[in-house]
């Protein structure tokens, strides 16, 4: 901590002893040294513009994914088949709203407001995880999302707990704890279905068949086609490559599917003794790019619901702001 504090001082423009224009080269050297030493960059530290922009893009996309990700699961809240499952699902979707709050706050430390980011989401200038453009067709999809989608998210996100930007890394610690809880709940939901009636088992298998490949796509394009990866790894925002994480996820899921009594929809899936990993079949990257471009089954529906909620809530937010303004004024008047 002491080292970090000393570095912090050195990297903070406010502490520029000469009081003139900050010495960018010196700041860049201090920043590079901090990254090399695996120290955290904090909000008031100097950072390159491109580093800031990359973080804003990534944290915003992550925050947007949390709030859009509420939709496919909330689709089943009013139809949850037992009160226990209903409570678990509501609590899970609530956690996602909470994650959205932490992440928008983390982005605010970089100088961009939640309103600006939401505006970019609503106008299509910022994206959210493409996985949420797939529909939840049956109750088992709630389990498949928990097991596979949250599982893939955790594989992606655990390394972010060591991300070089402090507020993001700290938000991720809390988020990962909750996500791993969600993943276990999803697994347990699928297990109950798999061991249930033949109809329930079929429902679980169908959901896994539909969510498997989109979950593998969540790790992003192959390393040689990933546009932001190299720079993000150099900045220690990202710690492992897309393909590395995807392989890790496959290796974790295969034995779990066996324990669930369910199969994964890939005839090429088999253990490779030499590599010490499971081999898996080719991913349909055309589908991936199509869904990203807006042609997935639910892109329009998700955005329409998000914009509608925002637009229909405008009068509520205006009322809250007007009330706060009036009453702040009252308090100030009372103080004289």
């Amino acid at each position: 901590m002491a080292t970090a504090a000393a570095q912090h001082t050195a990297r903070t423009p406010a502490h520029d002893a000469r009081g003139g224009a900050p010495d960018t080269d010196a700041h860049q050297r201090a920043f590079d040294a901090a990254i090399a030493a695996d120290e955290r960059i904090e909000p008031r530290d100097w950072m390159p513009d491109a580093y800031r922009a990359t973080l804003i893009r990534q944290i915003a996309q992550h925050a947007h994914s949390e709030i859009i990700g509420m939709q496919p699961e909330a689709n089943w809240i009013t139809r949850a088949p037992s009160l226990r499952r209903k409570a678990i699902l509501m609590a899970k979707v609530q956690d996602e709203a909470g994650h959205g709050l932490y992440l928008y706050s983390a982005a605010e430390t970089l100088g961009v407001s939640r309103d600006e980011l939401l505006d970019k989401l609503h106008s299509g200038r910022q994206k959210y995880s493409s996985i949420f453009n797939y529909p939840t067709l049956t109750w088992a999809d709630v389990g498949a999302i928990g097991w596979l989608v949250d599982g893939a998210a955790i594989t992606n996100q655990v390394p972010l707990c060591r991300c070089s930007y402090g507020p993001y890394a700290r938000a991720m610690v809390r988020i990962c704890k909750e996500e791993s809880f969600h993943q276990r709940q999803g697994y347990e939901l699928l297990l109950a279905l798999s061991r249930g009636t033949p109809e329930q088992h079929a429902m679980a298998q169908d959901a896994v068949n539909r969510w498997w490949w989109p979950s593998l796509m969540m790790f992003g394009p192959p390393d040689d086609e990933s546009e932001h990866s190299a720079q993000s790894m150099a900045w220690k925002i990202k710690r492992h490559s897309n393909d590395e994480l995807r392989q890790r996820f496959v290796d974790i899921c295969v034995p779990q599917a066996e324990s669930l009594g369910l199969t994964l929809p890939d005839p090429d899936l088999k253990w490779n003794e030499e590599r010490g990993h499971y081999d898996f079949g080719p991913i349909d990257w055309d589908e991936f790019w199509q869904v990203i471009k807006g042609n997935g089954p639910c892109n329009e529906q998700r955005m329409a619901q998000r914009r509608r909620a925002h637009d229909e809530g405008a009068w509520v937010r205006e009322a809250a702001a007007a009330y706060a303004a009036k009453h702040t004024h009252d308090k100030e008047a009372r103080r004289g």
Partner: protein
Amino acid sequence: MTAQPADTRTSLTTVSRETDVPAAAALALGDDALVLSHRLGEWIGHAPVLEEEVALTNIALDLLGQARVLLSMVGDEDELAYLREERAFTNLQLVEQPNGDFAHTIARQLYFSVYQHLLYGQLAAGDGPFAPLAAKAVKETAYHRDHAEQWTLRLGDGTQASHERMQRACEALWRFTGEMFQPVAGLDSVDWTGLEAAWLESLEDVLRRATLTLPEGPRSAPWAAGAGRQGVHTEPFGRMLAEMQHLHRSHPGATW
């Protein structure tokens, strides 16, 4: 049915073993909580601001927790929630009313949370079978009440548009509020007249501070025939149950 984890069942088995639970009262209070929780759950993903996604879900989860304890005092919580027909539910008509706009949701919550907070306050002070549940629920409902009051102030005393919406919502739901003070069989210790007076006093105070007018229309009527507590509901309730019960009923005997 499904084996339940110990945490949700412990407190209620203690209650039901040691005391003779009046079933009608447990169902009435349980159905209120179950149905309002469901309605609030419909908001998830549609709230006007992210903080309200969290807050409305919090209230829904508290109410669902109360409902599970209360229904389990009488029987299997899932059989009661998913396999009863509309006419067997004894919740107030107020709680089954569709969400409407945010003002309607807040007005419904204000009317109900003030009532529930006062009622559970009385039950918690007694030594009847509902006292342990009420002791916990009264803390939850204090928060629900505060949330609804704060929003009533913001909407009532916010913009002209929000003021008009909030006034309309208070008027629209007013006619469902008389039913809350019909004595519920089995809650013999409750002073219903005192409850109603305290509720009215609170409502007058909050609405006045919110620059709103206390509605003047009837709060119950002969045509209502006692309504929800007697299993007579409004049309939207049947559709709500159809959605809620559909999956459970499609797989008879399955565990989830």
